[in-house]
């Protein structure tokens, strides 16, 4: 990272923290919360889906583990900090199980396996009313009682900053090199001694931990969660699409993707109501056809051609 990029990231972070001084509307803060939340989720997904090139379409499993974890561990009487530790642990346990099995598969089979695991958890949450409240749902404790929208927004900014910093450090380390090597060609990676299975699993563990924190934040904002909201395939897709739209495997990609996708869907929702899904679909088709490497991938290609 060059100095100007570091300066840009730093000033972006400071400016993001100052936003609540200017923006007071609860609605606008909630939209901004959503943008930063999905930026963080996209960044977390990017470690596995972007850098390591393993298309996970089941990140709802970790997101749901975070949201349900916060609800269930606090209901069991745990203090908040312990519940946060436990929900991260729960998501990492899921990652261990899902990764341990799915990483033996490649390409579309891997993607299908991740969907299947998330759907199993989705069905389990629906059908275990005594534990999860079933379809009726379960209350989630409020993380903040005063200035809730402002506080949630700031938390989402912090989570984005943390995932960005983690991604940056990883991308410059041996671990990051190994992930990219696995994405480009697993045989070559193995030939230089990379334990591909273990490396992918480590990436998934980090990814799951951040995703769970995002899920907890999301659940707590709504105060009440049902399986269809936090464990559905829609969440998995949205996380993956944010990263792919912005540019998988790039540092800025998921942030750009979250800003574009979340603001577009918010605008279209007010104009077209349910038809916003149609626009959403069109947006995806345009990106897949004209920007296969996402917005940042396209920008990079243009910069490279100019040189």
């Amino acid at each position, binding site marked *: 990272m060059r100095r100007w990029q570091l300066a840009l990231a730093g000033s972006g972070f400071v400016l993001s923290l100052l936003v609540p001084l200017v923006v007071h509307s609860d609605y606008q803060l909630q939209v901004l919360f959503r943008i930063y939340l999905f930026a963080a989720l996209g960044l977390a997904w990017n470690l596995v889906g972007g850098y390591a090139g393993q298309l996970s379409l089941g990140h709802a499993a970790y997101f749901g583990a975070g949201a349900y974890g916060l609800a269930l561990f606090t209901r069991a009487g745990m203090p908040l900090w312990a519940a946060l530790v436990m929900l991260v642990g729960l998501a990492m346990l899921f990652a261990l199980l899902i990764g341990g099995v799915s990483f033996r598969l490649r390409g579309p089979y891997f993607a299908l396996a991740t969907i299947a695991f998330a759907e199993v958890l989705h069905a389990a949450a629906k059908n275990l009313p005594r534990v999860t409240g079933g379809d009726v749902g379960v209350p989630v404790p409020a993380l903040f009682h005063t200035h809730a929208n402002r506080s949630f927004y700031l938390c989402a900014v912090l989570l984005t900053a943390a995932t960005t910093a983690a991604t940056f450090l990883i991308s410059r380390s*041996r671990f990051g090199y190994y992930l990219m090597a696995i994405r480009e060609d697993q*045989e*070559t990676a193995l030939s*230089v001694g990379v334990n591909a299975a273990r490396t992918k699993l480590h990436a998934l563990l980090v990814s799951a931990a951040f995703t769970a924190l995002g899920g907890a934040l999301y659940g707590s904002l709504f105060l009440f969660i049902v399986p269809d909201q936090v464990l559905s395939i829609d969440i998995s897709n949205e996380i993956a699409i944010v990263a792919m739209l912005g540019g998988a495997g790039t540092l800025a990609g998921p942030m750009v993707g979250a800003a574009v996708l979340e603001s577009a869907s918010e605008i279209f929702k007010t104009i077209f109501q349910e038809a916003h899904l149609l626009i959403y679909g069109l947006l995806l088709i345009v990106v897949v056809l004209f920007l296969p490497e996402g917005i940042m991938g396209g920008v990079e290609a243009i910069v490279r051609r100019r040189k």
Partner: protein
Amino acid sequence: MNLLEIEHVTKRFGGLLATNDVTFSIREGEIGFIVGPNGAGKTTLFNLISGVFHPDSGTIRFQGRDISRIRPNQAAELGIGRTFQVVKPLRNLTVLENVMLGAFLRTRSGTKAAEESRGVLRYLQMEKIADSPASGLPLPMLKRLEIARALATRPRLILLDEVMSGLSTAEALALAETLKKLPEWGISAVGGVEHVMQVVMSIADRVVVLDHGTVIAEGTAKEVVHEPRVIEAYLGSKYKELGL
């Protein structure tokens, strides 16, 4: 002392006998070449030695240790480096960063890996392009990049699959000159080639000729080319005319 021992190794893919009862060995500090036409079983043999495939029968020993059942990443850890027939550099990374991927096997530190990699690039006369992007390099440089990445893992033995293919004779000879120095670094090599016998003759301590998965001749380059079966089965009468 033998560094690599292949003993009666057989590998089948369905009805195809890819390697059939192959036996040969490579001593420490030796440069060996496996010669054979496309489909003779060279790549299969390299994949068996580097743990990509496991033999159906027979044993592969490296430094006296049975490695018939190891995984490819364990082979690299033990000191077996390899290149691939189809070159696959990491796009968007520089030449140096590609080589660092190999150097990371022996160090966690990026600084040390870069230092080590620059040394390897110097050896392969690539230091001038260290910071250029790997995409867009001409084929001879890509072939060298493959070798550099494998050497950066500090192997005792390096397997060079079709390392000369696509190179002109002059380029192949230049590469051979470089490879000749490997034993000075304590590195043995096994190359695989289809033809370019001129190159093989100039650097090979030992030549193994494969045909349809079977070893049809083994010995020094001189011995092998005078073997009637080799001339007949593979090199043909045209080679005789060259007077070697």
